[in-house]
């Protein structure tokens, strides 16, 4: 069982990724696709090696803005979800506004953020935050709103106050929803920060890609994409691991 789990969890997805690169390489070579249209994985890799110093600096910047924006989103999303989930009045009052806000493409907000904060780190952090708080808030709210009244009655009949009910029932019951949303939110946060960097920054992987594409360094553009994807996978895996640890009860292995 153990080795079967490792195979399906790690080896199989690894093989799929390697397979994709092989097919990609194969297609590029057989059809003689020009490098500035679709570079082969080998030339992307070469570009990664060649520019690794520069890429590293930009990747750290992107990781930094993403994580700061994400952490703000977690705090804000938790608070908002808590308010909306617990109070039907606040839910009714805020929901249309939240839906409306979430419908706005966040790239459209970047110019506004640039007017307020100038180009650079702050608009990237804010875009990452704005794009990723919504799933957290919605999931936490759903977790709280679907809390079984029977479970609350168990605690209420013992004389528990609101805070105790939240700590003993509301919070643990919401954790699976919360962690599910973190996995979505952290990848969204990357989308946010990279969007902002491509439009209004002079640092970060997004900026690197824009510069590279203006110089027709297409392999470098793709190298940037790969770096973002890799960081996304690593962070997703981190939260998936935390989720397994803290809310394993919800998944009955």
């Amino acid at each position, binding site marked *: 069982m153990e080795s079967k789990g490792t195979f399906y969890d790690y080896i199989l997805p690894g093989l799929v990724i390697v397979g994709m690169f092989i097919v990609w390489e194969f297609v590029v070579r057989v059809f003689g696709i020009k490098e500035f249209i679709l570079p082969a994985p080998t030339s992307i890799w070469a570009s990664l090696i060649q520019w690794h110093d520069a890429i590293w600096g930009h990747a750290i910047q992107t990781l930094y803005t993403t994580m700061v924006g994400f952490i703000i989103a977690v705090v804000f999303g938790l608070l908002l979800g808590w308010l909306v989930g617990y109070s039907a009045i606040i839910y009714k009052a805020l929901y249309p506004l939240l839906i409306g806000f979430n419908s706005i493409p966040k790239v459209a907000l970047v110019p506004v953020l640039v007017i307020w904060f100038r180009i650079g780190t702050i608009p990237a952090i804010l875009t990452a935050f704005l794009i990723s708080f919504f799933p957290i808030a919605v999931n936490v709210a759903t977790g709280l709103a679907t809390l*079984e009244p*029977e*479970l609350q*009655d*168990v*605690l*209420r*009949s*013992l*004389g*528990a106050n609101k805070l*105790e009910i939240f700590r*003993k*029932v509301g919070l*643990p*019951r919401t*954790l699976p929803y919360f962690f599910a949303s973190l996995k979505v939110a952290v990848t969204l946060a990357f989308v946010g920060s990279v969007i902002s960097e491509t439009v209004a920054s002079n640092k970060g992987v997004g900026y690197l890609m824009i510069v590279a594409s203006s110089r027709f360094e297409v392999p470098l553009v793709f190298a940037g994409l790969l770096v973002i994807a890799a960081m996304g996978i690593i962070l997703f895996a981190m939260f998936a691991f935390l989720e397994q640890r803290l*809310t394993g*009860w*919800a998944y*009955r292995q």
Partner: protein
Amino acid sequence: MKQVWITTVSDSSEQNETIVEFKNVSLEYDYQGDRIHALDGIDLTVQRGDFVAVAGPSGCGKTTLLKLIAGLILPTQGSVEILGKPVRGPTKLVGMAFQNPTLLPWRKTLDNVLLPLEIVQPIKSEYYKNRQPYVEKALRLLQTVHLEGFDEKQPWQLSGGMQQRVSLCRALIHEPDILLLDEPFGALDAFTREELWLVLQDLWIQQECTVILVTHDLREAIFLANTVYIMSNRPGKLVSQSKVTIPRPRTLEDCFTQEFTDLFHEIRHQIGIVRGEIFEET
């Protein structure tokens, strides 16, 4: 031996201390825009150490009756008193088990049983200082309900009957004076249910608490209780009271004795009369 009558209920045959008293209690509430008249003029006296069952059709307000004692809702008219003091909210004197086991799925069995100790004052502070004696007590309780060795299991690893037993232990861990049971065996199969009747009887004899059981199973009510009340359809009224004098500890064989079946038929007949009255009114 058996006495069945339809009256307003008042019991003075016991010399014991009165623990729960309903004084002309009525309850109305709004539900999805409708005014619901749940209970009407309930008078009920329960003596300390007694085992009382309230039987009646679904939706007649039996659960509401328990919630009034638990302090989860307050009456719109009349008063509910525990040990002579009106109920104003939940108290530690009461332990409650529900129709569903309502165990917290993220806690293992033992921690589910211990849950009340984390909340009920003043046990709470003692419990956080020294957990060990309480853990031992919880394990003893689990042993009483034949669940030794299951304390480390997660709730979903237990069967429905086992979960309900854990729920009983949880209701009793803080040694409440009154145990309220809201159709605790309603969702179980017949075999498991009868098995748990015996478990509950053992617990009651051992813990010396007062039990108020709400059920729609007349056999369950007669088997378990000293006194069986019948409740009418909404608005719920207590329409009859019957004493069950079968000696303790009762066995499942007692369900087939003449005394048991006579009593069963008698009470069944009363319910028929109640239904007939309701039928004539509408």
